[in-house]
Structure formats: C-alpha cells, structure tokens
C-alpha cells in the first residue's frame, strides 16, 4: 500500500553521519521512498591534479597518500608503478615483495573499514566497525613500524620503498597473518548470516552486470555484479603473477554480494601475504634512482587493483622534474556513476545501506 503523498526534497549531507565524509545527496522523497536523487560532489575537491603539476615526482607521493586515505599504500604503489613505467626504473626483488605485502595489508585495512562502515550504516550500533577497527589497528601497527605514520605513509618511492623493513616486521606480520583468519571467521559469525542483515541487504540496490560494465564500475562493486575481472589477474603488475589466489565474484550484484565479496577478498589477501612472506627475499630495497626524476617525454596510463577498484594514473611528462599533466582515475567517483540507478525506488534506509555498500572515499571522489 502506497499512499500518494507530496514528494519533498531532503538533503543528505554534506555533514551527515553516514555519507562517509562530505558527500551530499539531494533526495526527492515520497514518504519514505526515494523518487530521485542527485549526488552533489566537490565538498572535498582539493585540486590534487593541479597541485601535482607543480611538484616533483617524489613530492607527489604525499599527495597520493591523501587521495584515498583509507588505502594510502595502494595509491603510493600505483603512483610509483606509473612513474617507474614512465621513467623505466627497475625495482629490486625485495622491494617488490614488500610492496605486495603492503598493498595486500592495505586492501585488508580498507575492506575492514568498508565492511564495518557498511554494517554500521545498516544500523548495527558501532559494534562491527569497532571490531574491525581493532584489526585495522594491528595492520596500522605494521605500517607504522615500517613508515612511522599511521594513515599517510609516504613509504614507497619510484624504484622501491623508502626504508627497509626492520627485523621485527616479519615476526609481527607472521603473527598477524596467523590471527587474521580466525577474526574473519568471527566477523562472519557475527553478522554474515544475520537475518536482519539479510533482509536489509539481499536484493537491495541491484547493479546488473551490463550496467556495471557500462558504467565503468570496478573493484568489488564490479565483481559483486558477477564480472570476474581483477587487474591483478588480468594485467599482473608488480609480481602478482607469482601468487595463487582467486577472484571472488558475486551473482546478484546486490548489497549483500558486495559485502560478501569484500569479506572473501580479505581471505584471499591473507593468502597472498602468506605466500609473499614465504618467498620474501633479501637484498636491496631501493634501486639507485636520481633524487629528481626526469622521465623522458611521453605519457603513461598505469593501473592497479586498489581496494576500491581500478586505480590508475595518467601521467604526461615533458621531461621536466614535474609532470605536465597528472590525472587520477578516481575509483570511488566512477563507482558512483550508477548510484542513482541503484537507489531510486528504494527507501531512505536502503539509500544509506546501498551507499555504504559501494564503499567510497571522499578524498578520491573529489580529489
């Protein structure tokens, strides 16, 4: 029974508890049903692309940290890979392994927050996100041990990593990898089969396979729609071709699938870290690279599979110390293309859940 009522406009955000930052949605509601939605971006537009044009290739790394601040390592990695491709820099073996470990830890970290925030949005009062934060703290400890910062690491450099891993890094990592699967089990037990969560998220906010591909969705959002596409497999960068892992995919493309895909991906990440730990070589951690990199004239489009999806940098070089044009493919922004199609027709409560299931990071949406 729907009672016809007058639609009214309501503003979600920019400072709303569950818009993951400063996202804003102008929503037309008919009672509780969303009739139309217009996302308003730009409340965190900081002009990173413009700033990057005035900085050296090393000086950009702190900027990339603040892109997707939940996955700063992945951003660092993507930037460094792009610069290495552009300038033809070789990376030593040890650095490659360290990078893979860091990137996968970062994926765990980001997915933990994504899942926790999603569950928090669906109304589980703070508990899941606090459990996940606890796990995240363990990862942050490792990052901190390596780079000295908790959130913005500035750890990778073109040609390796800035510092070698200290000797206590591997034992700590070992312990973490031992513990993590059990905690993941616990999270599954906590809410994965919860009836209310199923009722809230199954079949809600369906993104069809065709629409997902057509709207350039990537990462878990794309995979939850049933597309088996992961750049780590499709175009293995760094040394991802040496590891065995699977690409979890969903079937329906609903919120629950997106949640599940992330949970499964975390297990795969742990698997990759285990393998990388076993093969971890010794040797140089950074190749000899001039302090001011001057890549030859040219352009590069280099992409990696960041936690939120395909993160790519398009760099045009004019052989000066700063890039001529520095473009970032904002994963989160492009994942939001189909937002309206996913939300319209659902209720206000679903709006929050669907939005939370996409897992965006405002720093990357607005850049």
């Amino acid at each position, binding site marked *: *029974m*729907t*009672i016809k*009522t*007058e639609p009214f406009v309501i503003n979600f955000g920019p400072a709303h508890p569950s818009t993951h930052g400063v996202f804003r949605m102008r929503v037309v509601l008919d*009672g509780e049903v969303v009739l139309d939605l217009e996302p308003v971006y730009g409340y965190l537009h900081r002009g990173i692309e413009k700033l990057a044009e005035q900085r050296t290739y090393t000086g950009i790394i702190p900027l990339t940290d603040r892109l997707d601040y939940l996955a700063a390592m992945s951003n660092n990695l993507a930037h460094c890979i792009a610069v290495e491709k552009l300038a033809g820099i070789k990376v030593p073996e040890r650095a490659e392994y360290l990078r893979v470990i860091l990137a996968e830890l970062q994926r765990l970290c980001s997915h933990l927050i994504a899942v926790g925030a999603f569950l928090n949005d669906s109304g589980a009062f703070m508990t899941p996100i606090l459990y996940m934060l606890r796990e995240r703290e363990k990862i942050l400890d490792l990052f901190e041990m390596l780079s000295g910062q908790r959130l913005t690491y500035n750890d990778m450099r073109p040609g390796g990593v800035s510092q070698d891993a200290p000797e206590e890094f591997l034992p700590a990592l070992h312990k973490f990898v031992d513990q993590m699967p059990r905690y993941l089990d616990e999270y599954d037990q906590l809410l994965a089969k919860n009836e209310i969560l199923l009722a809230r998220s199954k079949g809600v906010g369906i993104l069809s396979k065709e629409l997902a591909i057509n709207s350039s969705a990537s990462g878990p959002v794309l995979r939850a729609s049933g597309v088996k596409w992961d750049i780590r497999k499709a175009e293995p960068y760094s040394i991802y071709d040496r590891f065995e892992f699977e690409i979890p995919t969903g079937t329906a493309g609903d919120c629950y699938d997106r949640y599940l895909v992330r949970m499964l991906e975390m297990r795969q990440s742990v698997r990759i870290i285990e393998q990388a730990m076993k093969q971890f070589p010794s040797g140089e951690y950074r190749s000899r690279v001039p302090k001011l990199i001057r890549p030859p004239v040219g352009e590069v489009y280099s992409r990696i599979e960041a936690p939120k999806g395909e993160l790519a940098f398009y760099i045009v070089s004019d052989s000066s110390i700063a890039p001529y044009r520095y473009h970032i493919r904002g994963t989160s922004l492009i994942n939001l293309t189909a937002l309206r199609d996913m939300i319209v027709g659902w209720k206000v409560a679903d709006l929050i859940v669907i939005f939370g299931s996409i897992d965006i990071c405002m720093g990357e949406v607005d850049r």
Partner: protein
Amino acid sequence: MGLAIAFWILAIVAIAGALGVVLLKNVFRAALSLILCLLAVAGLFITLSADFLAAVQILIYVGAISVLIILAIMLTREVTQGSPSGRFRIPAFIVAVLFFAVVAYAMVNTNWQIATAPPLEPTTAALAGKLFGEKGFILPLEIASVLLLAAILGAIVLVREK
C-alpha cells in the same frame, strides 16, 4: 467537594479542547486539542467511577484514533492550508446553538430518576459479566466485532493500490 472541583476543571478543559478543535486554524493543533478534550473526558469517566472505561478511552481514543488522525493529517499535508470554515458557518452555528438550547431545556426540565445506590467498583469484572455473561450483550458484541472486521477490510480495500 473534591469531586466537584475535579468535575469543573475537567469540564472546562474538555470544553476548551472542543472549542480548540473548531476554532484553531492549524489542523495539527486542532488534533492536539482533540486529544486534550479526550483526556479530559477520560478524567470525567473517573469521576463517574468508570475506571475501566477511562483507561479504554485513553487507549483507544488517544493511543489509536488520535494517532491515526494525526497520521492522516501528516500524509495529506493539509496542515498549512488550515481548517477554513465553509459557506455554512453561520447556519451551522445557528443549528448548533438551537440544538444545544433545545437539548439543554429538555435535560433541565426532565425529572430523571436518580438512583441512590452506590456505584459498582471495580467495574472491570462487572463489565465483563455484563458483556459476556448470561443475559449480557454477547450478541451485540459479536456484531460489533464483525463491524470492526468489516471496517478494517473496508479501509484496506479503500486505500489499496489499484
């Protein structure tokens, strides 16, 4: 004495509430005013030693009917338009006054057979006996429940999506 004070207070509140219903421009406030009136009437029931009825009055009128009416007000969004009076304001007023005059005249001049027996208290068990017991109102009760059912069905049919 206590009863008299209670009666006068409650009566005045009830009348004020009723006047609020017809005089207030804002529909939402009119509904709130109705609630006030209903509460006062529930109080009057207590002065009449009908405690069960008072509770039922609050439960049904305040808890259900008023909330339903407020829901209707909200859903139709006619709050801002207010509740204007129609063309029949003056005739309605005359009719109401005439009605009151006639009825009041009749009431004052009728010699009611006031019984001096004490009222039954508590009324709950007695009411149940009256409703369900022998020689009670069991048939009207059944009819009333059928009426309720019919009303619910009717309401659902009316507002169902076509």
